[in-house]
């Protein structure tokens, strides 16, 4: 699980990062909202933890901008006790949960776990990028025609469609989608990328997944 942490107070950021890392999360640090937004556009995160009061760009603006791009990564906001208005605007901006400072590390960890666990429930049941639509209810990929996708293909397609124009490594995909399989062969990733590519092509999508066997992959296309 990979978390983006946006927190300008260096000491607090270090403590949170260390605690999350100790619990097997991979943590990327941003010092302000602008940096967080940039990282979120480049990488696929399972969750984002962001402070509200930050220089250059505050957390609420960053979340608002993020949601505008269609990024539905779950967000936990850290707010000061007095900032009731901020909590409201934060949730309205698209945050999924908040935690009031000061908080216990145990509670933060539990909330991050809950957030990443229920990430899927927040996701819309129909995803549309470029000229392709993925209907998670019907397990169907459509453009000029519709075809069904197998269980693993749907999870992968959903992930790529939620993270367009981001480079995802073969290792990341193995860790994320083949974690519970006995066979974790990088060849399997390549095979499924090939399935997805050809299925995108067969529905007439103006989108594909670029990348070489064993390397990084990225979904890209035109509107």
């Amino acid at each position, binding site marked *: 699980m990979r978390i983006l942490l946006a927190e300008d107070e260096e000491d607090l950021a270090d403590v949170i990062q260390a605690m999350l890392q100790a619990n097997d999360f991979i943590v990327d640090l941003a010092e302000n909202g602008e940096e967080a937004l940039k990282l979120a556009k480049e990488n696929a995160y399972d969750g984002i933890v962001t402070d509200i009061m930050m220089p250059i760009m505050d957390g609420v603006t960053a979340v608002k901008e993020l949601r505008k791009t269609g990024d539905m990564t779950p967000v936990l906001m850290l707010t000061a006790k007095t900032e009731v208005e901020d909590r409201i605007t934060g949730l309205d901006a698209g945050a999924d949960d908040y935690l009031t400072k000061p908080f216990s590390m145990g509670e933060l960890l539990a909330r991050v776990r809950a957030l990443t666990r229920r990430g899927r429930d927040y996701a819309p049941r129909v995803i549309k990028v470029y000229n392709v639509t993925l209907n998670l209810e019907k397990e169907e990929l459509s453009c000029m*025609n*519709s075809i069904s996708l197998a269980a693993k293909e749907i999870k992968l397609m959903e992930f790529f469609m939620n993270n367009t124009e981001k480079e995802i490594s073969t290792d990341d995909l193995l860790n994320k989608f083949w974690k519970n399989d006995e066979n974790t062969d990088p060849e399997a990733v390549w095979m499924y990328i090939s399935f997805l590519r050809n299925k995108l092509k067969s529905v007439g999508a103006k989108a594909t997944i670029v990348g070489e066997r064993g390397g990084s992959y990225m979904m890209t296309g035109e509107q």
Partner: protein
Amino acid sequence: MSIYGEYREVLEKVAADFVARIESDAKEVIKNTGLKPYEHLSSRIKNEKSMEVKCREHGYPIEPHSALKLIHDSIGVRVVCLFIDDIWDNIERIRHMTGVRVIREKDYIHEAKANGYRSYHMIVEVDSGVTDIDGNKPGKYFVEVQLRTIAMDTWAALEHEMRYKQDIRNPELIAEELRRCAGDLASCDVSMQTLRDLIRGKE
């Protein structure tokens, strides 16, 4: 009197000749690659009753000229393939046959019908030694070629059965599930093609 008049037997000969040409091209492919370019091949002359109905629908007179020249599927040939890419290869070979002109093509594989129907349709005009009804020498006859995978063929067979069966209990539900099956089969066709490419080291 048949709507095809004295041309019924001619149509059968033209159909047999066209099938023979596809077969002879296939033999060449097998000789070069060792692989069969299609699974099976069939042809039919449109049933006279259906032809009459079709002429009437279009407002054409019920006579041989309408059936041979205005309607283009008096002869139907179906090429059923194992894999999707075999369809494209067969289309290319038909496009390059001498004395065969492509009149129309419709790609219902990429643009599947709303009910899920998938197939590639070609209307071609073929030259024949037998003078046609307009007095052309060589004679010109229309053939409708349908190319599809075995999965698409199975689907079409069931859809056909449903369409001509009266009093089905829940037609909407069956139609919706049939549409879903078309999507499942298409997905499987693409997966099988992908695996074949991986096995052959093409991906």
